[in-house]
């Protein structure tokens, strides 16, 4: 049997350990905090556990039918009419026991393809899908029992169900219609049309090579054109949909035929307001169809309590279809309905409800005072809200949904922070949101605390208690760091310090601009925050830092694919400085090529597929009369450059600097030879594991032992070692500044975004061994500030020191994940320790930290016996996901993260 790297290191006494601060107990230790949901929420969550991700073509059929009818209509109105038709024809389903109702489709965990964005995936698999659809089978109980493994993902065909994009099931009787719809968008989709024009970019060939070699993970213009942003519920809450229609009608009277000094798009305002009215009529129909369904069900049941619930649901829906909400229950239903409507309008991942506890507080406060609701009833509603959010699925291609998102939808709910006038913004409703997140553990909405020293201790300790459930939420964000970044980024667009305080997290941990609005409820005025900026899921996503370095070492050539990705630099790389210069040149070439092509994709998107409903929700579209594509939003400098694999890149530069340039122990050619030989190890794919410690030595691979040992022992990020910290600082100072040299289609500078989501899996899989001793195909370090597993040997405070050697407010974010054994933070004393640890990182200027409070032995057991762990949640990189729905690359990486036995 081949030896693993962990065995070899142990034999050699090389101190790389996947535990720090002692040894974990021999037995498996479960999480300290474990609570139960209310029976109603438990029933709804149990149904979720037994539900498959399911797609249907109902929405795309009606959208396409109307769109084709209106060939000669103005684009924004044509799109609005298509959306209205699609919303109006969705089949409503209400599941027994629901308090909050409505969904993306008729399925509990439903979604649908949007071929007007991209149809290529279906066309490429047309024959295969037809064959699957034709091979009809009788579904049997045996097949049903296979569903457990992999959670709700439909990874293969069964019975009369066809698997698409590796995750979603579709009934085979709908497949011919799906393919017919896809065919009708060939040459017209955002994907096809933008590709036609992207080809005219001189750097197009380089961009394509970058994509093929997985240096970049995905194009955002036609995959997920919106998202990683904070939405805004103010207008529906204050005016209701009927009131917004009235506003749009008044605006039409003002602007029809008037350019008002804007000879380019002044006249477009008329069409935008007309489109707003049209879309809202569709959404009203959609809500009323659910109300009708609730009335129908009320008429069928003999159960008096259930009948009353259906009638209450119908009454709520009928009211909010037109009017502003009067109660917390109506407001919660309205915000949820609005959220789902946005998600049906476009392919979106990371649509955050923002500081929802602060937005809904006016309704809750007045209901509590009037005795219309109790805390127990609120908790039950919030638990149901969690289940409904967890049912949200996002339909995109396999590479995006699996490789980037791990099936997650990142509806991040922010709490805490400060008010407009700088006071703690927490409230009693946020305490209940935390409680519901403990009693009803689900991935959505994930939670973030906007940490500020001013926040009350009881709120912070409650958040720590929530961390101790092991779900990974809430993540901790530095509120003042965020204010600094936001204020600096958007002051050219009029951002004030006061308004900077309205920020919240969009997606995993994307700092997103917000605005305050004055909401009046029963004569009392409240200042509520909400999103006011464009998506931040857009721009250059994600660049594999270690892969760029690999191309530098191999003269622009990718050995995995055989592609000459970049023009040959033909330099000997005789000094570290020269190596670093070429690295920057290749990186800048990458950003340049991707940015130009991406701008074209988004330009096509805004011309053909602009958000209408989502646009009108955010300031200042309704005031200006312009949608997102015409710069209707208040803040538009949101395009970013996302990186991946920072720790491995920094560690690799440190190893090269020390071993090749400073000490001259090896030549660069010797290093390259060892890399190509994978330091004498088999490939990760060959052994089916993507964790460094489990890699197996090849027979005869010993000739690279010494160089590999030296690479592993070279200075590593996360140990407060000035040698490697200086490299990180140089990189960050350059990277954050460099991003601002590139401009989005909105003529605004880009900025740095440093999160990995799940890209460290596939991008690691497509990268050779790296000079830091990481082996080929293994997963990169997660996040951007986390240490590479097993290499942080000096404890958490040393890791924090390294991570904060640069100014985090120069970047939209940074990301730090820490895995802590449950026994390290037991009891109230343990909670205080964890809070102190968090405070320490925030006070040192760290932007983000999140914890996986879990015994690695549980994860290893879950990997062997997934059937026993359907409900196990883990934190990955900015999101919480069911263990069984994660790919193996990511599972291996989470297992191998350094586990802190003491803090």
């Amino acid at each position, binding site marked *: 049997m081949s030896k693993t790297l962990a065995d070899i290191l142990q034999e050699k006494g090389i101190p790389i350990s996947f535990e720090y601060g002692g040894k974990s107990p021999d037995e498996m230790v479960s999480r300290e905090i474990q609570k139960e949901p209310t029976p109603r929420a438990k029933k709804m969550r149990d149904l979720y556990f037994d539900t498959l991700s399911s797609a249907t073509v109902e929405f795309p059929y009606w959208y396409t039918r109307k769109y084709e009818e209106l060939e000669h209509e103005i684009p924004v109105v044509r799109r609005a009419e298509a959306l209205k038709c699609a919303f109006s024809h969705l*089949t409503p389903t209400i599941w027994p026991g629901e308090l909050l109702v409505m969904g993306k489709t008729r399925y509990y965990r439903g979604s649908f393809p949007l071929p007007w964005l991209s149809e290529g995936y279906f066309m490429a698999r047309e024959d295969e899908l037809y064959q699957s659809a034709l091979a009809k089978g009788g579904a049997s*109980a045996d097949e049903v029992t296979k569903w457990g493994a992999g959670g709700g993902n439909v990874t293969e065909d069964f019975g009369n169900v066809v698997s698409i994009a590796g995750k979603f099931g579709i*009934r085979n009787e709908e497949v011919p219609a799906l393919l017919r719809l896809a065919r009708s968008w060939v040459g017209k989709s955002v994907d096809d049309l933008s590709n036609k024009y992207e080809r005219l970019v001189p750097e197009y060939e380089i961009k394509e090579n970058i994509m093929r070699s997985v240096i970049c993970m995905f194009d955002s213009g036609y995959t997920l054109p919106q998202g990683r942003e904070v939405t805004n519920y103010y207008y529906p809450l204050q005016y209701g949909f009927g009131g917004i229609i009235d506003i749009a009608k008044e605006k039409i009277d003002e602007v029809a035929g008037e350019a008002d000094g804007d000879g380019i798009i002044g006249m477009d305002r008329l069409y935008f307001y007309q489109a707003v009215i049209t879309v809202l009529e569709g959404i009203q129909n959609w809500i009323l169809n659910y109300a009708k369904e609730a009335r129908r069900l009320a008429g069928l049941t003999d159960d008096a309590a259930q009948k009353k619930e259906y009638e209450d649901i119908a009454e709520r829906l009928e009211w909010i279809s037109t009017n502003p909400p009067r109660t917390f229950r109506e407001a919660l239903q309205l915000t949820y309905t609005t959220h789902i409507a946005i998600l049906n309008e476009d392919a979106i991942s990371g649509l955050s409800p923002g500081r929802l506890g602060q937005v809904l507080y006016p309704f809750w406060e007045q209901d509590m005072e009037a005795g219309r609701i109790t805390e127990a009833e609120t908790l039950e509603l919030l638990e149901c809200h969690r289940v409904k959010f967890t049912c949200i699925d996002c339909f995109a291609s396999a590479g995006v949904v699996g490789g980037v998102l791990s099936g997650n939808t990142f509806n991040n709910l922010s709490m805490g922070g400060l008010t407009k006038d700088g006071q703690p913004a927490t409230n009693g409703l946020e305490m209940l949101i935390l409680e519901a997140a403990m009693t009803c553990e689900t991935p959505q909405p994930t939670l973030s605390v906007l940490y500020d020293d001013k926040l009350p201790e009881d709120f912070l300790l409650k958040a720590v208690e929530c961390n101790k459930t092991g779900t990974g939420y809430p993540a901790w964000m530095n509120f003042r760091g965020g204010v600094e970044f936001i204020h600096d980024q958007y002051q050219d667009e009029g951002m004030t310090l006061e308004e900077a305080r309205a920020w919240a997290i969009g997606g995993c941990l994307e700092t997103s601009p917000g605005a305050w609005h004055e909401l009046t409820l029963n004569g009392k005025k409240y200042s509520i925050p909400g999103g006011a900026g464009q998506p931040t899921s857009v721009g250059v996503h994600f660049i594999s830092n270690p892969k760029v370095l690999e191309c530098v070492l191999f003269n622009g050539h990718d050995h995995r694919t055989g592609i000459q990705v970049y023009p040959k630099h033909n330099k000997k790389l005789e000094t570290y400085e020269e190596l670093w210069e070429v690295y920057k040149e290749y990186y800048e070439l990458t950003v340049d090529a991707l940015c130009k092509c991406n701008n074209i994709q988004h330009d096509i998107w805004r011309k053909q597929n602009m958000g209408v409903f989502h646009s009108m929700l955010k300031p200042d579209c309704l005031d200006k009369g312009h949608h997102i594509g015409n710069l209707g939003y208040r803040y538009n400098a949101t395009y970013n450059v996302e990186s991946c694999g920072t720790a491995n890149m920094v560690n690799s530069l440190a190893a090269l600097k020390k071993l090749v340039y400073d000490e001259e122990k090896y030549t660069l050619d010797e290093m390259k030879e060892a890399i190509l030989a994978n330091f004498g190890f088999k490939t990760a794919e060959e052994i089916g594991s993507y964790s460094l410690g489990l890699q197996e030595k090849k027979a005869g691979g010993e000739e690279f032992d010494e160089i590999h040992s030296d690479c592993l022992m070279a200075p590593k990020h996360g140990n407060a070692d000035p040698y490697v910290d200086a490299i990180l600082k140089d990189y960050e100072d350059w990277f954050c500044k460099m991003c601002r040299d590139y401009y989005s289609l909105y003529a605004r500078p880009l900025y740095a975004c440093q999160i990995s989501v799940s890209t460290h899996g596939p991008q690691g899989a497509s990268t050779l061994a790296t000079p830091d001793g990481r082996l080929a195909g293994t997963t990169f370090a997660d996040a951007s500030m986390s240490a590479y597993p097993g290499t942080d040997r000096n404890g958490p405070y040393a890791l924090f020191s390294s991570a904060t050697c640069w100014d985090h407010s120069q970047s939209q974010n940074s990301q730090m994940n820490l895995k802590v054994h449950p026994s390290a933070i037991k009891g109230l004393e343990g909670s205080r320790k964890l809070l102190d640890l968090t405070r320490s990182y925030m006070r040192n200027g760290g932007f983000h930290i999140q914890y996986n409070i879990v015994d690695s032995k549980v994860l290893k057991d879950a990997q062997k016996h997934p059937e026993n762990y359907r409900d196990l949640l883990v934190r990955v990189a900015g999101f919480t996901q069911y263990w069984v729905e994660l790919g193996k690359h990511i599972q291996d990486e989470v297992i191998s993260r350094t586990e802190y036995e003491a803090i």
Partner: protein
Amino acid sequence: MAKEVEGLKHSDCRNFIPVDVAKGICGARNEKVLIDTPVCEKFATLPKCKNCACFTENGDEGFGVCKADDKMEPWTFAELHAVTCEMYRDK
């Protein structure tokens, strides 16, 4: 009591509450059912294009045209739900 009716599935029944592509809840019996299993005597027809007087089948893959819009005659398919279709008329 289950009954075999040629071509009928639970997803053709108005009492069926879909959960996913394989199963749902029978609203009449309040129990989980697989779509592709025999329906029972409480079966009630769900509005779908195939049950609509405006639908004319014209292909072997379930495709047809919707005659409700006699100018456009758009294509549609037999299994499309018509619960919310304002043009639906029982055959």
